[in-house]
């Protein structure tokens, strides 16, 4: 029987507020690594902001905004080993950028172009899952499969607070614990599921408490604190690699943007709260932390932004220069060795 403590309730933080709360640090992260995290966040932020603009210009379709979620995504993805697999939801559509994917590919995905179908094996990133929570069992199975093959790869699966209401989450989490699958269940708790607030999603005070019911550790972390996310994920991965099974990480944040570009949140959200939360957004917090530490200069910050913008510019240009897809592709990719008798109905 696994010994599992009740889930943590205190939200883990490392970045201070430059005032009463002191800055901490993560062991093993040198200046270069700290700046890697910074650049990753800037790249994601730039991707997101540009995508909203591109959408308004009709250059990408309906787009799931992740503004304010960059700390969760960068902090966790950079904690992974190269061989570890990522199972993203639509909210982490651009996570591939942190593994060398070009913006052209991700933009193509949102443009509905087959060039957006990246090779999951090349990037160790599964295809984006839009049906909620369905990919939790996939990550568990991947991790279990890797273990059976004697590999040390782990899996990291991203899903939202709303996803914890789905059977696939529950069954997947239970499976993971029972099999001791080397997987990290990373819940992006942005406190909204489209128009449904967390309070209408669950009566549980803390999502992390669910972990105890499955017999796995539950960790709560400030999702606006990239270092806290990095550390919590690293710890969870170390447990997984050591054969101790899954961890549930609840990364707390607040969705400060519409659910997707097509959504009008004015009917349901609290504009003042959104305003407050936006002021405390994760990239600014990390930027100020690095400056207090003396690691980040104006020049470096500008460099990171310019580089990200440049990549986006060439990414959208390349995506727009792609020839329209050949509709026949639909028959080429639905089956391995497509049975000829199934063509055209």
């Amino acid at each position: 029987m696994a010994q599992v403590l009740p889930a943590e309730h205190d939200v883990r933080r490392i970045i201070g507020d430059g005032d009463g709360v002191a800055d901490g640090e993560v062991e093993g992260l040198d200046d270069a690594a700290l700046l890697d995290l910074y650049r990753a966040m800037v790249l994601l932020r730039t991707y997101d902001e540009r995508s909203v603009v591109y959408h308004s210009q009709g250059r990408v379709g309906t787009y799931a905004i992740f503004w304010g979620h960059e700390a969760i995504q960068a902090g966790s993805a950079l904690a992974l080993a190269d061989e570890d697999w990522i199972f993203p939801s639509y909210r982490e559509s651009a996570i591939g950028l942190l593994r060398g994917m070009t913006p052209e590919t991700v933009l193509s995905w949102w443009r509905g172009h087959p060039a957006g179908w990246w090779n999951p094996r090349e990037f160790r990133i599964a295809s984006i899952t839009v049906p909620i929570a369905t990919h939790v069992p996939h990550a568990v199975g991947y991790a279990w499969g890797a273990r059976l093959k004697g590999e040390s790869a782990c899996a990291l699966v991203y899903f939202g607070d709303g996803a914890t209401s789905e059977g696939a989450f529950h069954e997947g989490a239970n499976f993971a614990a029972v099999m001791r699958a080397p997987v990290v269940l990373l819940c992006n708790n942005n406190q909204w599921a489209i128009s449904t607030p967390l309070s209408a999603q669950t009566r549980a005070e803390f999502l992390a408490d669910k972990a105890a019911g499955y017999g796995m550790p539950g960790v709560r972390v400030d999702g606006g604190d990239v270092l806290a996310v990095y550390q919590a994920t690293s710890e969870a991965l170390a447990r997984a690699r050591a054969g101790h099974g899954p961890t549930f990480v609840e990364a707390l944040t607040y969705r400060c943007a519409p659910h997707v570009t097509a959504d009008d949140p004015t009917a349901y959200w609290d504009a003042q709260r959104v305003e407050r939360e936006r002021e405390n957004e994760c990239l600014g917090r990390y930027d100020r932390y690095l400056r207090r530490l003396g690691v980040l200069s104006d020049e470096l910050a500008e460099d990171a932004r310019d580089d990200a913008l440049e990549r986006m510019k060439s990414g959208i240009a390349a995506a727009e220069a792609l020839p329209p897809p050949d509709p026949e592709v639909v028959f080429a990719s639905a089956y391995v060795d497509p049975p000829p008798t199934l063509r055209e109905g």
Partner: protein
Amino acid sequence: MPALTYREAIRDAMSEAMRRDDDVFVMGEDIAEMGGSMGVTQGMLDEFGPDRVRNTPISEMAIVGAGIGAAVSGMRPIVEVMYQDFMTLAMEQLVQQAAKHRFMSGGQIKVPLTIRTQGGAGWSPGAQHAQQLEAWFLHVPGIKVVFASTPADARGLLWSSIYDDNPVVFFEHRTLYNLKGDVPAEIDGIELGRARVHREGEDVTIVATGRLVHEALKAAEEAEQDGISVEVVDPRTLLPLDEETIVASVRKTSRCVVAHEAVVRMGFGAEVAAIVQHQAFDYLDAPVERVGAKFAPIPFAPVMEEYVIPHAEDVLAAVRRTMGKD
């Protein structure tokens, strides 16, 4: 006659039922403040309050399952499943439970549950949000299946679905929500299992469902230019099916095209073709033609989506084939 959009017509049926009957309520994902992902329940929260217009957690299985329980308790729940693609998460509840509760109690309990769901392609929602899966449900004894294509039909059929004592799956097509049309001044039910003849004709019968009803009507107009007289029949209820109207029409025209947006293979069209060849064999002048999506997942890319799903010109081509004019 007032004119309503398809969306408003559906809302009107629900609201009117809720005004008249305390035991009618709606629940589903994001249906309260937001008014549903397609805006169908907009304004209903204000009128009926959060107990009767209930936002649920993201739990399709429990939405349908709890709908069954509430129906057994004597309520007439209307549950909304945001996309019919997500009915896949609730299949056990529907197929094993809702459809069998009455049978397995020897007819002693009833499940007056209405499951509203929407779907369909034509707006590039991608492979997991665009399917037309209605044929799956037609294999299941114990439920009824409705697919309305006009505002008047949507309102009347939803009304009948709500007051039907059996579980009813009520399909809406995403691209029809803004379609405007006349509805009767007074709300009234349309009998489940009665087809509607949209247009009378002499040469070819098109049996069409959902969005394809409108494509069929376009095709019929064009065929007319060619001197082909087309009758368009919308079954409206797929289970039970108004075989009589379909067969009578084909006996008159001697030719039949079945058109739906779902894939052709093993589809609703195959069933209609079987019924027609069995009951109108001696009347047929041409093989029954089927029009539907190509056998592929629905792609996200608009040009590819257009390629996969059927349009008026596909229906017209089928009509011409039955006339030996291809």
